[in-house]
């Protein structure tokens, strides 16, 4: 490798190419922002502007679209946060424990069990759709928030264990050894050592899980009949149907204001956890 490297000339990057690099970054950034910008632009339009000035910026901006949208979707947003947070707590606990078990404990059939769990990642969601509906129905869980929380707590840790195992493997063994010498049991090894050191990993998992919950659509649509318990993606769909965007253009603005509002919690979450998120990914070293 060394000899091969020595053959290539040592070129200092030119200033111009640096500038080009930044221009390229800016261009790509712009490109990726276009649809988001369209969304925000549309969210400030009134009926006429929406019809006549679809793509251009038009004044005055109608901020009240956000109020109308919020009126419709506030309950859905709150419901989703509630369901997602409770579910996430379960997912984090089970993933932390599971990750620890598969990274640090030795027991018969550990590897086959682990691979069986990985295999579950590949089960298409539609496979169990109707049978699961019937199960929830038989247990009287339809139209309750449990119907939204349980699938996440049961299914979320599949990826969670996979991620946390990779992460926990990276924690130096010496830490555990010294704790074991102090007589720490498995339980306290998890809570006193693994947990504080796994925060970045858990942050990563939180972002991924929360985004997935935020987007789940068909399952809540079918299991929740009471609109007062319904979640945001169904709520957005309803907003687009009720305002009848298809033919009634006056309502296009509030619809897009609703889309923007619905994105905000995720943006905030990512900004808050973003640093940890990346750290968690770095340290897990993502091994399969």
């Amino acid at each position, binding site marked *: 490798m060394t000899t091969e490297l020595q053959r290539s*000339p040592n070129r200092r990057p030119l200033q111009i190419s640096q500038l080009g690099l930044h221009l390229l970054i800016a261009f790509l950034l712009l490109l990726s922002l276009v649809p*988001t910008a369209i*969304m925000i632009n549309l969210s400030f339009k009134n009926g006429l502007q929406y019809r006549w000035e679809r793509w251009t910026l038009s004044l005055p901006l109608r901020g009240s679209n956000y109020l109308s949208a919020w009126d419709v979707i506030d309950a859905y947003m709150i419901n989703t946060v509630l369901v997602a947070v409770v579910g996430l707590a379960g997912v984090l606990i089970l993933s932390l424990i*599971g990750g620890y078990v598969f990274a640090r404990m030795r027991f018969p059939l550990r590897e086959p069990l682990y691979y069986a769990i990985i295999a579950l990642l*590949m089960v298409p969601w539609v*496979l169990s759709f109707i049978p699961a509906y019937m*199960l929830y129905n038989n247990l009287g869980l339809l139209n309750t928030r449990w119907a939204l929380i349980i699938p996440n707590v049961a299914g979320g840790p599949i990826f969670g264990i996979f991620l946390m195992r990779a992460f926990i493997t990276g924690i130096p063994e010496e830490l555990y050894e010294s704790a074991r010498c102090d007589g720490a049991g498995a339980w306290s090894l998890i809570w006193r050592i693994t947990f504080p050191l796994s925060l970045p990993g858990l942050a990563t998992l939180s972002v991924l899980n929360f985004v997935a919950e935020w987007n789940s659509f068909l399952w809540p649509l079918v299991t929740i009949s009471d609109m007062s318990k319904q979640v945001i993606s169904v709520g*957005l769909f309803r907003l687009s149907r009720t305002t009848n965007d298809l033919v009634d253009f006056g309502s296009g603005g509030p619809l897009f204001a609703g889309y923007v509002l*619905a994105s905000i919690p995720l943006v905030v979450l990512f900004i808050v956890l973003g640093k940890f998120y990346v750290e*968690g990914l770095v340290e897990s070293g993502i091994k399969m």
Partner: protein
Amino acid sequence: MSAINQRLSSWGLNSPAARRNITGYIFISPFILGVLIWFLVPAATAGWLTFQKWNLITAPRFVGLDNIENLFEDELFLQSLKVTTMYTLVAVPLGLVLSFFIALLLNTKIRGISIYRTIYYLPSIVPAVASAVLWAFILNSEFGLLNAGLRAVGLPKILWLQEPEWALPALILMSLWGLGATMVIYLAGLQGIPEVYYEAAEIDGAGAGNKLIHVTIPLLSPVIFFNLVMGIIASFQIFTAGYLITSGGPQNATLFYVLYLYRAGFLHLKMGYAAALAWVLFIIIMGLTVLIFKYVGSMIYYEDTR
């Protein structure tokens, strides 16, 4: 208590190590139990449904292997498999390369990296329902933004969502917009590469290209591999774009596998057949993953074998 200990020791399960074994099972049991009840019981029911004819309305009826035999005569099954495979073959590698490229660009020591990161990540957290509506806007052949752009530079318009040869590329284009999630993972990987490797390479006289080929890519190979596997699993289950934007058309050009499966169940009222389709999909994804692990996984460079 002693009776239990006796029994345990007779199984060789009384040593401290054995206790640790059992602790492992106990710790993992809530998860296993959850998966069994809420995940595997419905999946097993679906397995049973594979051998039934069931329209959701009247009672299921045992039909043996009919559902599986029907697969081979179903041209739409083959079409959906073809569409999904083509989508995967293009969208996954393209996404991997592009997001890797962007991550490389962003991995310079520029100020405000976290802002860039957030901006790139933004599209992947716009609610799927919203981005579907937005892209229908952009791709419309008569009034869409994309064709307005083509017209501005004097090119003829493209019937993105009506020409079968353009519909899938249009959806792939749309998927690239959500690259941010993959890109952030690369970026994390890149930041995890210790600076010393690059310094060593520079001392050896390596240029940017050499550093990329001999340092970055090998050290990042686990991350690339991770993104590859996750990308394939997700791409074979793509549903929303076909469901909300194209309804599988035009001429079945975007009839994704899961969309066809969903229709088989809820539109054609053939739940048994849908279950068979689902199992076939599971086997395909599983098989592919195993193959990738076998042939690509062996090329992966892991920094230290922990």
